[in-house]
């Protein structure tokens, strides 16, 4: 198969898997607030593990261009949120039902998925197995993220099927960015460290600015720390065993 079709395939699978996050709502009306916190902690840990893999497994040493890439990713996401007015928004307020909040939450999830797409595209350019590993890590990460988004949408009386559809739709940016980054790096291989750096900077920033802070308000710091570390440890272990 043409490598770019593989990128399309794996990033699409990762995006589609997000719909699994809607499944618990087949038998549960709503999530308990601790579960929302733990779900986001799982998502945060998996993302930090992915960032570790990009920094340590992806390249023997982070080159200067990679460091600049990190800074660009960081500043880009920070400015993007400032421009969209979503810098200090709380992502898991199940009770908040204003139309504006709903639109902001969908927008933020689309931004997240875009950064994850850069990670998949950059990892695919390092090597195919590493790219598949990254796509799987992001796919699993999409499940708890999809679960929290579904919980918010269910709180606004969105039908379950429509909620699952919206969850997948916010992840379409992931497929798009994966393909664009992969194609760019194939055309100009010198861009690879920049792309890896960008992915690391934006992923780590998102974890610390958006996924983790509100977790601590929904569940205690000890349980959040343990859940985050277990999720992160699994990705790091798999990255270490696989190489």
């Amino acid at each position, binding site marked *: 198969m043409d490598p770019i079709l593989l990128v399309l395939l794996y990033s699409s699978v990762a995006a589609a898997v997000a719909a699994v996050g809607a499944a618990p709502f087949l038998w549960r009306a709503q999530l308990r607030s601790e579960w929302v916190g733990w779900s986001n902690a799982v998502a945060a840990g998996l993302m930090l593990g992915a960032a*570790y893999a990009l*920094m*340590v497994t992806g390249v023997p*040493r*982070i080159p200067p261009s990679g*460091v600049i890439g*990190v*800074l660009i990713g*960081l500043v880009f996401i*920070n400015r993007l*949120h400032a421009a969209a007015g979503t*810098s*200090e928004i709380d992502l898991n307020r199940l009770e908040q039902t204003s139309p504006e909040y709903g639109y902001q939450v969908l927008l933020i999830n689309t931004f997240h998925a875009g950064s994850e797409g850069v990670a998949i595209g950059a990892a695919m350019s390092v090597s195919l197995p590493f790219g598949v590993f990254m796509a799987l890590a992001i796919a699993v990460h999409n499940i708890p993220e999809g679960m929290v988004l579904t919980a918010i949408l269910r709180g606004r009386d969105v039908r379950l099927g429509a909620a699952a559809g919206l969850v997948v739709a916010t992840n379409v940016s992931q497929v798009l960015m994966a393909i664009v980054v992969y194609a760019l790096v194939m055309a100009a291989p010198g861009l690879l460290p920049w792309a890896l750096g960008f992915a*690391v*900077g934006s992923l*780590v*920033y*998102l*974890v*610390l*600015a*958006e996924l*983790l*802070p509100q977790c*601590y308000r929904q569940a205690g*710091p*000890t349980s*959040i*720390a*343990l859940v*985050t*570390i277990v999720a*992160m*440890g699994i990705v*790091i*272990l798999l990255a*270490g*065993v696989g190489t």
Partner: protein
Amino acid sequence: MTASPVVVVFTYGLVTALATGLGALPFFFVRGLSARAVAQANAVASGLMLGASFGLVAEGTGFGAWQTLVGGVVGVGFILVTARILRSHDIGFGHVRGIGARRMLLLMVVMTVHSFAEGVAVGVSFGGGMALALAIVVAIAVHNIPEGLAISAVLRPQGMSVAQCAWWSVVSSLPQPIMAVPAFLLVDAFRRILPYGIGFAAGAMVFMVFEELLPEAYGQEQRAGVAVTVTITLVAMLVFQQYL
């Protein structure tokens, strides 16, 4: 003049420990710590410790991924239990009491146990021959400075003087010369336990970050500000380790 290799290894380990105290120096230039500055100091410590853990784990998985994992689980469990014990006692650290003292003491425990693993790493690397000794010493000494910075970033806002910050930073690194000697003498045995030790050190630091330092940072500073600081210090620490 020929000094016994044991004395040389111990002296080198002591030099690297003393370098940790240099991490307190930036606080000569930081005056008047506002609540936000304290939160930023916690964010700096978080980023440095996460970056250091990533570097350690990358090294540990080179020796054995599963052994590193086992060490990591034990490290998390050890700090979990230690935090529980500290919470049930009225702790004093210097002239500080209560929650602040508990956090300082826990950080000292975390950074001191992590120095045991680093001491073993020093000894084992000397076991490969003394040719690279000076390069290794300089590398580890320089790498200890940000660790002293992480410790001072937590101690200084609690009212410790810069000299006290430097002192406790050095104390946290004293296991380095102490562990370097037996590791140097019994390289083969210690090489086998090294990944466990590395995993233990990383697990202890990561747990401290997620359980204590980050929630504390989020309490007083906007999330974006915490995220920028942690991301930059994390990557800086990792790059720093990779190039030394």
